[in-house]
């Protein structure tokens, strides 16, 4: 198993190295000379050629690109993501300050999605082709097709503007969580429910379920002791991808609900052309996502004895 973890770690390192490269080159996606772009972001107006020249030297932009990259990576290794071009705040500090809001939103959404998806998926699988099953699967297909920005607006219109039950934006009390978490969670639930159903159906068709029945076990025991443990393994792996979905979805949901998280920070930085902040956010999100996938893989290995022991010897 350690060998397996080491192998996965090596892969993740390669990926993260590639990610730094993409994050670094972000600045070159923008049309125009980086020094001018930075000057525009920082001072908001056109500067004279000599001023831009000084800025270029000060920011080290006169060096060849690969040297710039190495210097930048050098800073990265010391956990120095630079300073915001707009506010001069430390990028990492700013991101870490926004992290709890995003994390809380993600956890709340995951909770919502599992609370909806697991019962729906399991019931659908147990009553395959029943009205309930067809209904659940149709709703989930519609759910997959609803963009979360529209769902968010609809929820705001219904629960905030019409029924006045929950606040439409802001962050703080538990009430603030309801609409954003519902928005993110329900669209996730649609996919999770389908996956749970498919996975459980596959497991229920396995011979060891018949064998368990042959021992005289009742359906309840078979479902909870024999089937679910197998069926939920892919659902757990999927939770890793869900985390990525949450981070991406957070960008939109945080923007709609003015949620002070990393997603909103990224969008704001893009509008402000705050390159170091964009690089920081992108890098942070990608690394977070890669590490969470790694964590899920390890969790999977711990849960699945086939992997746990195969890699052992």
């Amino acid at each position, binding site marked *: 198993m350690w060998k397996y973890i080491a192998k996965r770690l090596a892969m993740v390192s390669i990926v993260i190295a590639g990610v730094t490269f993409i994050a670094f080159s972000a600045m070159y996606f923008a049309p125009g000379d980086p020094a001018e772009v930075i000057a525009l972001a920082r001072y908001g107006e056109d500067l004279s050629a000599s001023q831009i020249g000084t800025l270029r030297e000060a920011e080290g932009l006169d060096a060849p690109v690969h040297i710039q990259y190495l210097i930048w990576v050098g800073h990265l290794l010391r956990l120095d993501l630079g300073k915001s071009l707009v506010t001069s705040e430390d990028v990492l500090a700013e991101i870490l300050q926004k992290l709890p809001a995003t994390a809380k939103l993600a956890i709340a959404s995951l909770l919502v999605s599992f609370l909806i998806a697991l019962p729906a998926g399991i019931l659908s699988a147990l009553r395959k082709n029943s009205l309930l099953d067809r209904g659940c699967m149709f709703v989930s297909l519609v759910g997959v097709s609803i963009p979360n920005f529209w769902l968010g607006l609809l929820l705001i219109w219904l629960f905030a503007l019409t029924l006045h039950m929950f606040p439409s934006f802001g962050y703080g009390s538990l009430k603030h969580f309801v609409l954003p978490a519902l928005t993110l969670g329900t669209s996730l639930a649609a996919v999770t429910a389908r996956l749970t159903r498919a996975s459980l159906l596959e497991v229920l068709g*396995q*011979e*060891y379920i*018949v*064998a*368990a*029945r*042959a*021992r*005289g*076990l*009742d359906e309840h*025991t078979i479902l909870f*002791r*024999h089937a679910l*443990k*197998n069926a939920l*393994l892919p659902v757990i792996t999927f939770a890793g991808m869900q985390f990525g979905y949450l981070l991406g979805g957070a960008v939109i949901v945080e923007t709609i609900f003015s949620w002070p998280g990393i997603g909103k920070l990224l969008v704001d930085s893009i509008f402000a052309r705050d390159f170091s902040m964009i690089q920081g956010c992108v890098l942070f999100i990608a690394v977070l996502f890669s590490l969470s996938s790694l964590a899920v893989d390890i969790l999977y290995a711990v*849960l*699945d*004895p*086939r992997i746990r*022991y*195969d890699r052992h010897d």
Partner: protein
Amino acid sequence: MSYSILSIEDLKVSFKTSKGTVTANESIYLEIKEGEILGLIGETGCGKTTLGKAILRLLSGKAKLEGKIVYRGTDLLTLTEKEMRLFRGKKIGIMLQNPSACLNPVLSAGRQIAEIYRYHEGMGKKEAEKKAGEMLELVGISSSRGCDYPHQFSGGMMQRVMVAIGLALRPGLLVADEPTKGLDQDTKLQIAELIAGLVRKENASMLLITHDLELAGSFTDRIAVMYAGEIVEIGKTAEIISNPKHPYTLDLLHSLPGKGLRMVSGQPPSLVSPPSGCRYHPRCSFRVEACSVAHPGLMGPEGERFTRCLLSEKGRKKETAAQPFLTAQAAFRCRCEGEGI
């Protein structure tokens, strides 16, 4: 010895599929006596496994069962699902085919045995695990391996675990479906001896489902031969081996390595639309015209022997002794003797 622990009367098992109704078993009459090991042989796809599963009602919901399966006076087909559970594992144990698929990959072997005790006998965790350990020792696995997972065992070991599961509650009847499939020759014998030994020791009965004639020959008291969902011949093992009366049994015997290794020619018939008349007639080398028209019943007994063939002696007596039958029957007999079986 003469009481029957299980008697199957006029059982018919059919499945509705998109291609039509598949009748996997038809007019099955079978009796397993107390303390007896009955072998059920036939080629792949003839309905042996279906019959084994049907006894415990383990077939999927699409299967339709008609007839009677009586275990010590109780017709299993009339029970509710809940009552049926008391028979499964406790009164009738079953070892399904292919242990690597039948053992749950994410539960340890010990736990899969222990859960039987916990569920049926209401034992505590500790006690059940202790019993599971004893059971493992009984089938020749060290009890310390109880916490190992199925994929850590070899094929033979997995089969031993299956034996432990099947016999955990000392059932009166064990249904063993191809317990030696996919094992090498040595392991095969070991496993067969283990199962037969344990069953004999407990004075239990067993239905041994196999396509391996040699295995059935050395471990059973009686043999039932199945072809295309029907029992075509049934009788004492020694008699069946030394004096097969159904042409299919004869062909099966010929396919043994020591007996010429001559494969049964042709393909097993479709169970959706079985051949008219005798189901074996398209592949039978003794067929006469009547075989393609008349569907023979299971005829007998001759001693303890029943045969489903127009050409069997009993059948010949019933039919007006027509010349073609006689000649064919004579040819059949000659060939049996000539081959020295």
